[in-house]
């Protein structure tokens, strides 16, 4: 109840705030205070609602559907907190929470800057209204009780002491395909429990838990930061829209710049943290897979970065009687960046990506789907509509283009290239909506030339002067950076970069690096404050070089490591030394890596997950300055059973499979009359599978056996020397009339060899200079931060 009330208040207050601020903008003086009160009421309610949800999670109130669906009692505190945003409801609430907090700061910021507040805050409140509408009790309510709709709760989350309640049998169900038991929780069960004096949170004592894929350190960091970025992107939008409202386009640039820098910085950081998560923990093998969910947040980031550059030009070229260059471009880009954030949300939350993405959410229901569309549509229509309405006026007041060889024009060209890259990524990511899909090659093929251009333009734009430059001077200025980048490129060619486009990309990135480094070096000594852009550019150039090296020139091989026996992999000696269990039920597979007398250790992880009903694998990385050694586990064989070289087959009665030159048919079970009963009761039993094996015209009838003898599992494999076969019956499923067989070639030495051979199969890769990608990211963020401080200072004037 409390949660629902808080969320409803927040929603109503947000709408009220939007309307009151708007009325104030239209000239009603007395609504300003009311608008401020409404806004702060919204912020307070949203914060309280978030605190309340966190409280419900921390105290395991499993009678709430959200708490039940994403958390359980076993999670450590950090991960327990992160279940706050593990589902759609909570992540919308988190987004709204960040917007509320940012909004409080924005309110003060805008109140201190002329007549800005009513316009900016009315737009901002409108955005918040939509977000809060998403989590009201009618749509995606994080505070829904579990029985609001009849809910199937797994029997093992129910307090076992209540299973003997007489009325409970009406609510027990079994899923025949998995054999799992469920309790149907609905209003009538809750009533029955209440009349028996049992509270629902005594009855449900555990939750479904968090997907193990999400159970790691980065889950606690990546989503919250990404959502700060999403939330912050609505601020520049509010400024641009405010400018359109007032029909005044000069001041908003300076006021929006620090916010745009902040939004781009945080969103960029969030995106790259996701990349690190995918690389270091999920074992995707790389940091960027062009997955639609990754792309959909990259697109608004690219557009916002493009906007930053042309905003800078407008700010620089604005004067007493001119609004500055690219005024139209800036409005379009800033509005677009925000709309693309909404588009990203729509793509990832509406289920439209269904088959295309590893981690898109499932269908949220028709109503939420429609609401997301309306959310996005509203701001496209509002932003686009007002822009078109003002377009003619804007055209009149925008000054004409200037010299081709000027920094203004170079920055504009840079933004156009960024826009092209965003367009490419947008098209590829949106393709699944139309039932098409794009291979990753598309992104690489299209973005590589754009990347080359970005590097070149980046360097060039800083060598040319504002307004106009002459060619000779330009050439003189670029002597150092040109020669340095040629040397760097030659070094990279010697190091193995041979692909022509890659050589160009290497040159362009080095060029950007040296130009910026030269300027940064000159500036840094005098004025750190102004170095932000150059620092960020150097970071980008380093990131690019990291991308060149790690994406095109990595080496990878599958190896089987026998315990204790060294294997040679890319000049390194790998020794599997055995596994060790961790406290949370996973297994570390320890590998000793040796080269030139130096020793390193890698411990990739494998474990069986009940939640996913499968083997989960996490890689491990040994980072060096020039490369990462990346080890992904594949499988482990303890050598005790006979299937080390074998294959597993599952086959039905009457079915035939081929193994090598042999055909094996499963004819019938050899099932003693009482075997089933004994199997159920846990007694000794023996079941055989009658097989017919055909090999080069010979026919063998064999019967591997499987069962329990004296409480121990018994496997009685059959060997057919002539057909070079050993067949082991691993398990049976009498209901489906199926058997699982492990078949391997017969080896004479197998019998003599009593020693267990433990084998760990891994994929080992050498990924050169991945570290540069992360280093570049850190430097970019630092550059953004420096710039943000500088622009914040300037915005006060």
């Amino acid at each position: 109840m409390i949660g629902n009330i808080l969320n409803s208040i927040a929603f109503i207050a947000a709408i009220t705030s939007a309307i009151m601020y708007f009325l104030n903008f239209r000239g009603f003086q007395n609504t300003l205070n009311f608008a401020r009160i409404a806004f702060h009421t919204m912020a307070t309610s949203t914060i309280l609602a978030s605190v309340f949800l966190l409280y419900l999670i921390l105290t395991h109130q499993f009678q709430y559907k959200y708490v039940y669906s994403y958390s359980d009692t076993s999670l450590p505190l950090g991960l327990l907190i992160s279940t706050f945003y593990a589902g759609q409801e909570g992540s919308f609430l988190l987004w709204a929470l960040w917007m509320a907090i940012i909004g409080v700061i924005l309110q003060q910021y805008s109140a201190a800057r002329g007549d800005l507040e009513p316009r900016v805050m009315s737009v901002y409140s409108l955005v918040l209204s939509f977000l809060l509408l998403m989590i009201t009790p009618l749509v995606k309510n994080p505070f829904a009780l579990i029985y609001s709709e009849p809910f199937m709760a797994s029997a093992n989350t129910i307090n076992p002491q209540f299973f003997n309640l007489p009325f409970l049998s009406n609510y027990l169900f079994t899923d025949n395909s998995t054999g799992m038991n469920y309790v149907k929780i609905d209003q009538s069960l809750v009533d029955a429990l209440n009349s028996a004096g049992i509270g629902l949170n005594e009855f449900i004592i555990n939750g479904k838990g968090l997907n193990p894929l999400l159970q790691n350190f980065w889950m606690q960091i990546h989503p919250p930061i990404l959502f700060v970025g999403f939330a912050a992107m609505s601020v520049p939008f509010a400024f641009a829209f405010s400018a359109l409202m007032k029909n005044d386009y000069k001041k908003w640039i300076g006021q929006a710049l620090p916010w745009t820098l902040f939004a781009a910085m945080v969103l960029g950081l969030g995106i790259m943290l996701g990349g690190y998560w995918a690389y270091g923990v999920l074992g995707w093998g790389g940091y960027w897979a062009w997955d639609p969910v990754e792309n959909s947040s990259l697109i608004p980031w690219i557009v916002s970065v493009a906007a930053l550059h042309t905003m800078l030009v407008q700010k620089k070229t604005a004067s007493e009687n001119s609004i500055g260059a690219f005024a139209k471009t800036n409005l379009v880009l800033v509005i677009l960046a925000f709309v693309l954030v909404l588009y990203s949300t729509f793509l990832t939350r509406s289920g439209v990506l269904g088959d295309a993405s590893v981690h898109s959410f499932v269908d949220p229901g028709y109503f939420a789907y429609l609401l997301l569309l309306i959310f996005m549509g509203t701001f496209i229509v509002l932003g686009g509509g007002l822009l078109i309405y003002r377009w003619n006026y804007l055209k009149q007041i925008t000054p004409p283009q200037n010299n081709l060889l000027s920094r203004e024009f170079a920055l504009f060209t840079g933004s156009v290239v960024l826009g092209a890259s965003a367009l490419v990524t947008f098209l590829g990511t949106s393709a699944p909506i139309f039932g098409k899909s794009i291979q990753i090659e598309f992104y690489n093929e299209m973005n590589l030339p754009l990347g080359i251009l970005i590097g070149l333009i980046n360097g060039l734009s800083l060598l040319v002067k504002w307004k106009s430059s002459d060619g000779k001077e330009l050439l003189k200025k670029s002597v150092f950076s040109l020669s340095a980048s040629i040397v760097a490129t030659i070094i990279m060619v010697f190091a193995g970069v041979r692909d022509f486009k890659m050589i160009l990309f290497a040159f362009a990135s080095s060029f950007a690096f040296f130009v910026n480094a030269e300027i940064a070096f000159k500036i840094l000594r005098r004025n750190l404050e102004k170095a932000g852009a150059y620092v960020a550019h150097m970071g980008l150039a380093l990131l690019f070089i990291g991308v060149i090296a790690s994406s095109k020139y990595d080496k990878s091989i599958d190896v089987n490591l026998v315990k204790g026996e060294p294997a040679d992999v890319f000049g390194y000696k790998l020794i599997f030394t055995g596994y060790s269990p961790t406290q949370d039920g996973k297994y570390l597979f320890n590998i000793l890596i040796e080269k030139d007398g130096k020793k390193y250790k890698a411990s990739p992880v494998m474990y069986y997950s009940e939640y996913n009903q499968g083997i989960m694998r996490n890689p491990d990385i040994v980072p060096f300055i020039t490369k990462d050694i990346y080890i992904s586990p594949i499988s482990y064989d303890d050598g005790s059973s006979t299937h080390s070289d074998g294959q597993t087959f599952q086959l039905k009665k009457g079915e035939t499979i081929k193994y090598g030159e042999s055909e094996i048919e499963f004819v019938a079970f050899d099932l003693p009359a009482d075997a089933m009963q004994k199997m159920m009761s846990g007694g000794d039993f023996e079941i055989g599978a009658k097989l017919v094996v055909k090999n080069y015209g010979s026919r063998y009838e064999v019967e591997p056996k499987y069962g329990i003898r004296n409480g121990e599992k018994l496997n009685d494999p059959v060997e057919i020397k002539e057909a070079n076969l050993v067949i082991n019956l691993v398990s049976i499923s009498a209901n489906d009339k199926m058997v699982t067989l492990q078949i391997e070639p017969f080896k004479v030495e197998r019998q003599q060899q009593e020693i267990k051979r433990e084998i760990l199969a891994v994929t080992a890769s050498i990924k050169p200079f991945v570290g540069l990608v992360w280093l570049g990211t850190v430097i970019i963020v630092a550059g953004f931060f420096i710039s943000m401080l500088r622009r914040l200072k300037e915005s006060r004037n």
Partner: protein
Amino acid sequence: MKTRYYIGGFIIVVFLGLLFYNFTRTNIEYESDFTQVMAKGKTCKATGVWVKEKSFQEDVQNRTFIFYLRDAKNNEMKVIYRGIKPNNFEIASNVVVTGKYENGVFHATDVLTKCPSKYEGQNINTSGS
């Protein structure tokens, strides 16, 4: 002044041309009808459900995983995947395989499993007990 627009226009035309060319070249269609997958014999993303009743083979040493998929019209198709059984395969409600149908077998280069229970409530078939 005019030449600037010509050059700009030319670059845009080249870019859009490249975009269109690469888009069509790397485009893979989704196909939920296996008769189409088999008939066309070109690279596509086939979606279906894993046929649990039929045999599967997993050969970890040689990184081969062979299984059967079924589409909505009950057409079945044998899939050979050069790799290991992906995470979540057992509980996947839907499997998307990328590859090509050749000589009676679908050769998959990628297997993607979709799990409804991952983020949302589990839908289960129930029967009274």
